[in-house]
């Protein structure tokens, strides 16, 4: 009964609203709108700016944006050099690494036995990023157990001990010796372990990387039937090793570059020293070294930082995940950049024809390769122009359609309420939605949903008289054509440009399409990718290098490297590369 009364009270009586604690993201000090009095003090400085401008600037002073991270300014104090006192080092490390707040860092203090002295030392590393066995066996075990020091010289103890430790005790193959804290910390951040010994102002950083990573797997996006089935993974050294084992050339240089102020992502720039053009290598290096950013995560971002023209729809750098492809492009004289953490390598410069090639073209016999290239070009044209051509022909140039087809189109469009432009846009959007959704559907039903969705959607739309059946075919063929393009970015760019062409075709038929093609070609012909004109060797006509551009010549004819790369060594093969084909007489036997 009491419950019932309470219930009635609750429903009908007035209740004070509870003060609810909402979470508000506090602004920075400088952005707070202060009292008016404060503002007036600062205003005399602002009078100099123009009136309209002052309406739009923020009420506070402009923030000084240094552009670089001010991480270092927030530190209370900074130690640059390793001190001899281990407790000082340990305290600094604790502050720097936020121990014990930071849960996955391990600071292990231990003692090294030197004759009869006990020297304390400590070990610091990130749990999960290091290979525990390596630390145990190669660092802790020798230092703790096998440290029967025998001091021979009368020199200072420090030198002996540090060198002794470095050269004799730490049985690990990559040890870095350093005096500066920042270097050691950088190594620790990337999977090393730091060793600090009391009484020595030098610290050691050992490379004991051992985090979990993906193994070398089959390529996901560039699948070939014939050819190697390895692809890059996210570890930098594994990737460079994959390339080196193909090329086995000591002239293959892998320069290290570090990108990103905070992330300090290691990258490798690969080129073959006596083939690649020096100015090209210098230019790539210059661009890589002059990127200022905090963190960088993937070569996709790197590509956008160093490419020539961000607005142009076609990419100017090739991203590939196959080591054999990178290797073959290096032998042509191009430069490759591999970044740790990304399974895609960037190769530059590129020309238009590289986007039409897949890795398989070289491994497959010559007639098949040419057929495939022709198919790809047709696929490109269809994926770009087919909806536009459909709109142009059915709206402007009716006399081109054979009579039977014309009647079929008319009959099927009779009950459709939309004009054909609207139909096409609806169907294209539906197709793009299906494509995008198909990426995120869980795998068992993923591909099935894509196909069935498209079919059923199309069929139902036709039956409901929203679209005409011929349009379904047009949209489906366009979509399939865009999948046939070997390069993912290029296919993407054509997906966008397709809509522009539909729009142009709806305005002015073939004239609009030609206008679009003309403007796009002018942009393409003007574009340069790292100093190489994009449409070479057809754009500026070069002397040689036609053997593998549009059509592929048989392999024994591929004698020269492409001319537009201006390589140091232009001949790949001598004139007769199949020496067995010469008769014995000619060979002088």
């Amino acid at each position, binding site marked *: 009964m009491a419950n019932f009364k309470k219930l009635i009270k609750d429903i009908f009586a007035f209740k004070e609203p509870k003060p609810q604690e909402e979470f508000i993201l506090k602004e920075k000090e400088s952005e707070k709108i202060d009292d008016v009095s404060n503002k007036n003090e600062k205003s005399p400085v602002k009078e100099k700016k123009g009136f309209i401008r002052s309406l739009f600037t923020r009420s506070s002073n402009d923030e000084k944006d240094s552009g670089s991270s001010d991480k270092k300014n927030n530190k209370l104090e900074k130690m640059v050099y390793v001190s001899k006192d281990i407790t000082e080092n340990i305290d600094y490390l604790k502050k720097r690494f936020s121990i014990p707040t930071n849960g996955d860092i391990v600071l292990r203090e231990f003692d090294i036995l030197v004759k009869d002295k006990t020297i304390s030392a400590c070990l610091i590393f990130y749990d999960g990023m290091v290979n525990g066995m390596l630390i145990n066996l190669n660092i802790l075990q020798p230092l703790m157990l096998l440290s029967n020091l025998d001091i021979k010289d009368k020199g200072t103890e420090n030198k002996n001990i540090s060198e002794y430790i470095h050269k004799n005790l730490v049985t690990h193959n990559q040890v870095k010796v350093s005096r500066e804290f920042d270097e050691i910390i950088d190594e620790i951040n990337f999977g090393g372990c730091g060793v600090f010994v009391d009484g020595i102002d030098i610290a050691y950083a050992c490379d004991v990387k051992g985090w979990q990573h993906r193994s070398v797997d089959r390529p996901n996006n560039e699948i070939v039937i014939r050819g190697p089935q390895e692809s890059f993974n996210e570890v930098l050294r594994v990737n460079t090793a994959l390339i080196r084992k193909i090329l086995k050339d000591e002239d293959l240089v892998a320069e290290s570059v570090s990108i990103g102020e905070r992330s300090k992502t290691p990258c490798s720039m690969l080129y073959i020293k006596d083939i690649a053009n020096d100015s090209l290598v210098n230019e790539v290096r210059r661009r890589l070294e002059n990127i200022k950013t905090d963190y960088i995560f993937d070569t996709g971002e790197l590509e956008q930082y160093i490419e020539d023209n961000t607005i142009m729809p076609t990419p100017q750098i090739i991203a590939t995940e196959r080591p054999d492809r990178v290797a073959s492009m290096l032998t042509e004289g191009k430069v490759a950049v591999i970044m740790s953490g990304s399974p895609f390598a960037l190769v530059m410069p590129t020309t238009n024809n590289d986007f039409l090639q897949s890795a398989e073209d070289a491994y497959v016999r010559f007639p098949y390769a040419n057929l495939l290239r022709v198919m790809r070009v047709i696929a490109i044209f269809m994926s770009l122009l087919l909806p536009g051509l459909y709109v142009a*022909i059915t709206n*402007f*140039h009716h*006399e*081109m359609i*054979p009579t039977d087809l014309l009647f079929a189109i008319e009959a099927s469009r009779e009950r459709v309420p939309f004009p054909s432009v609207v139909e096409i846009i609806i169907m294209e959007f539906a197709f793009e939605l299906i494509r995008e959704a198909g990426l995120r559907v869980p795998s068992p039903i993923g591909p099935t949903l894509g196909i069935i969705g498209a079919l059923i959607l199309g069929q139902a739309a036709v039956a409901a008289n929203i679209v005409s059946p011929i349009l379904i075919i047009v949209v489906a063929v366009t979509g399939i054509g865009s999948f046939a393009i070997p390069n993912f970015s290029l296919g993407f760019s054509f997906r966008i440009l397709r809509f522009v062409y539909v729009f142009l075709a709806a305005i*002015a*038929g*073939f*004239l*609009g*399409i*030609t*206008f679009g*093609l*003309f*403007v796009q*070609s*002018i*942009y*393409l*012909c*003007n574009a340069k990718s790292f100093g190489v*004109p994009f*449409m070479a060797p*057809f*754009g*500026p*006509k070069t002397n040689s290098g036609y053997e593998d551009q549009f059509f592929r010549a048989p392999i024994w004819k591929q004698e020269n490297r492409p001319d537009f790369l201006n390589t140091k060594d232009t001949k790949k093969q001598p004139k007769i590369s199949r020496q067995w084909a010469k008769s014995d007489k000619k060979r002088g036997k």
Partner: protein
Amino acid sequence: MNNNITFGSHEAICLLITMISTKAILNFPSTMAKIGGPAAWFVAIYVSVLAIIAFYIISKLYSKFEGKDIIDIGEILGGKTLKILLGILIIIFLTALLSFYLRNFSEEMKTMGFAMSPIGFIMLFFVLGMVISAYHGIEPLIRFQSILVPITVISFTLFVIALIPSMSIDSIMPILGTGPYNIFVKGALRISDFAEIIFLFLLPPFIKKRDVFNKVGFTGLTICSMVLVSLTFSFVSVYPYPVSTDDLLPAYELARIIKFGRFFERAESILVITWATIGFMYLSTVFYFLLHVFGKTFDLYYYKPLILPFALVVMSISLIPPRLMNSILLEAETFRNLAWLIAFVLPVLLLIIARAAVSRKKRKTSP
């Protein structure tokens, strides 16, 4: 205006082919038919031979002036005044050419496919194409042409081959057409159809080498004449004499006849694409050279600010003739009657005088 852009021979040849062969699809066959009757193809050959001979003479005279175009030669000869005079003449010539052809292209595009659109709408496309390519400079345009011109030439060859079933030799009889007087005397005036050769004389700063210049000239003129003659021949052999003079668009009429079985008929809409492409290439090139010559004459360093004003001027001039017939008449009769003076006589005179002046100077300076 810095000229560190260099073309090779292939690109310059493609440029020349675009310039001169555009006429082949416009009204060249009709004009030849008006003059020569059934022997129009013969007139075409005759005119081409005349043009090649004229080029030969000019190239011989050019031997001392490597890498200089006409305006530079004018400057050497008569200083600033002659340079400005020459420049203005050439500017007027190019402006007239551009406006006529802009109008002709748009009108004929309208006739071919867009009967109801206003002319300004069609012209807007061409003008926008011209403006956009002028902003990017001559290089992408040249590269585009060097890719597309071989494709266009091949497609025209296929076009002519597809017409062979409809050709009949008796349309070419009688052999001498309207008579030797008409062919040789009146036909000689039509050398102004090759007046676009003046672009070749503006190219030396880009080509920079004399033997390349000669090669470009001869090869380019030969290919152009082959294209022109073959199209004229096919036109005249498909449409017998009186009919061939009353056609407005010879190439369009030819395309309408192509028929392969029941399926492939009325392919003239494909001609719209080729037409539009050639139109864009031609107009953009002439526009760029107009700006280039203007800048060179008046010693301007930047030509980009001139683009929009010139585009407006050209578009307004091209809208002046009130009807299509006026425009065609103006171009075919008035303009062409004078064009050969500027394109051929002017360089020849200039070169002869310049040669004489240079050799006199040499004689004066050398002991």
